[in-house]
């Protein structure tokens, strides 16, 4: 009897401990998505009269602007993820393998510091630097690289810069962890057996760091794909970011059904790309999340 009571008590404790997470999952993720799914499958035939249909999804295919934006967002996000990886890898290598003691924690904090400022302010900071009357164009003119101040905002490259800047920390942290766990003597052994920098990177370091790379890439890719502020502010009207389309449908057009359909398409797209990336590099999602 007592053992049974204790069993009930521990189960109750478990449920109570999990309750906030369950409420959060159910209330903020599952329920709204169910509602969005229902919304996206309705179409209005008359005021206050709705019918089930795939119309909203059909609009997406029929209207080139939508799926162009969609493909563009995906490609830009992949590109931003790749750039972030290229920039973060040497930084993570330095933090994990070369820096010692205080230097290491200082470098980590340096990566973190930009996050003490809100994303809006950070992005506005980029605008102050890059706009036509801003700091960088003025310097370019001053040192004779340009005759008149160039407009550096509203280019794809500018969006990329902003996205990479926002994402670097999320790549550096898992990469540093992955590289820290790599035994230095493996690198020395490979070198001793005749390996060179490139072959060691390819055959020893990258296979070891693969779960960290995958985890960082997934996080960065998701953040980038779902980013709204950076592409909108730095890319202006040219940004053509898919989240912007969703925003427009919901807020400007008040077309919730279309917005919901776009939201679902974005979810499917991101899942498909992550799955494809993991499959191409021969990894499993569970492994990646466990090892990084």
């Amino acid at each position: 009897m007592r053992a049974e009571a204790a069993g009930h008590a521990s189960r109750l404790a478990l449920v109570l401990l999990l309750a906030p997470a369950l409420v959060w999952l159910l209330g903020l993720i599952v329920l709204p998505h169910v509602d969005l799914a229902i919304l996206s499958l309705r179409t209005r035939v008359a005021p206050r009269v709705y019918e089930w249909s795939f119309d909203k999804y059909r609009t997406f295919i029929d209207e080139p602007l939508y799926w162009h934006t969609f493909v563009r967002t995906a490609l830009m996000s992949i590109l931003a993820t790749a750039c972030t990886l290229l920039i973060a890898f040497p930084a993570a290598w330095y933090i994990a393998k070369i820096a010692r003691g205080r230097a290491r924690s200082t470098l980590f904090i340096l990566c973190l510091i930009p996050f003490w400022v809100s994303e809006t302010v950070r992005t506005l900071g980029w605008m102050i630097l890059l706009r036509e009357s801003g700091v960088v164009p003025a310097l370019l003119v001053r040192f004779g690289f340009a005759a008149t101040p160039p407009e550096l905002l509203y280019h794809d490259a500018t969006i990329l810069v902003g996205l990479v800047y926002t994402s670097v920390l999320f790549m550096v942290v898992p990469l540093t962890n992955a590289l820290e766990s790599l035994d230095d003597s493996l690198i020395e052994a490979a070198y001793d057996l005749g390996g060179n920098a490139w072959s060691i990177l390819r055959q020893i370091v990258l296979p070891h760091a693969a779960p960290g790379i995958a985890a960082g890439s997934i996080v960065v890719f998701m953040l980038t794909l779902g980013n709204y502020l950076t592409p909108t502010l730095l890319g202006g009207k040219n940004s053509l970011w898919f989240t912007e389309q969703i925003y427009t449908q919901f807020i400007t057009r008040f077309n919730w059904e279309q917005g919901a359909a776009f939201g679902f398409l974005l979810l499917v797209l991101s899942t498909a790309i992550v799955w494809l990336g993991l499959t191409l590099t021969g990894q499993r999602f569970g492994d990646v999340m466990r090892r990084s």
Partner: protein
Amino acid sequence: MQQDLEVDGVTKRFGAHVAVDKLSFAVAHGSFFSILGPSGCGKTTLLRMIAGFIAPDAGDVRIGGKSMRDVLPNRRPVNMVFQHLALFPMMSVGENVGYGLARRGVAAATIRERVATMLKRVGLPGAEGKRIDQLSGGQKQRVAIARSLVLEPTLLLLDEPLGALDLKLREHMKIELKQLQADFGTTFVYITHDQSEALVLSDHVAVMSNGRFEQVGTPQELYYAPRTPFVAGFVGANNRLEGSATRIDGDMVELRSKHGLTVRAKRTGAINAGDTVAAFVRPEIVSLARDAGELADGMQVLRGRVHSLLFDGANSAVLVDERSTNAQFHIALPQTGRFADLRAGEDIAFGFDPERAVCFGTSADAR
């Protein structure tokens, strides 16, 4: 005889600390050479300089007669077995062993063939497809050695490869290592802090302390004829007695300790009357007797009380406190079982042949 490794006046400093101090030695082709020393004596630094991971501040390393100055580790005819073996966990056993050959651009078919031959020679035929984590400690050891030897290096460096193994396996791998070295005939340079490994495995042992070699010799020379107090104290067990030389009689020194114990021992190096000296008496040269009359003539006879018994099978010993000065002696028990009934607190006589005890002057350099 051809020298596979010549180290010539090599020095390495880390800041003010001299890790390796103007060291010179040579290792003959096909021999098993050990560098024995306590941690921090500079042996790892020395090994890493031979492998090429650290550049010496002064001096030169020659391997197979060629100077290795400015030759990178991946271009040296030297391979290393790391302390924790450093097998590549992301590769199979076959890929590990074939790694070096692949890096040299050997054809895939040849690699397969040589890997198979090598695995057979180390007693792991057909293990190519196994993952590293499927191997036992001893098998990993063999793969690590195979991975290096398949490249046919002039010299194989081993950095305490048995350190991480448990005692039983370590004893077993000691024998296996010695057999592997004899089979392959490759020159091995082995570093360790474990004197038993060094004595069992090596043709020659260098005892290292504070960046210098104290003595280089065969295991027997180090054990029976240590040339410095450090070697006498570090290699094998020893009873150390300190005091001053009261009388010199040819090769024999009479030592009187602070507490008044007087013993005689054989002189090593120059000693004058009045010098501070240290005498070393091996546990196994001391004989025990319940009756002092049983001890042989010419023995230095002392009396004492059994402090404690240290039973360890064939290595059993007893700690005896000398009666007048309380100086403690570590004495090996005879394996005949004659003193199996010895108990703590018992009074006993013991003695040793002074010719077999060694005495060093310690005033010149306080080591």
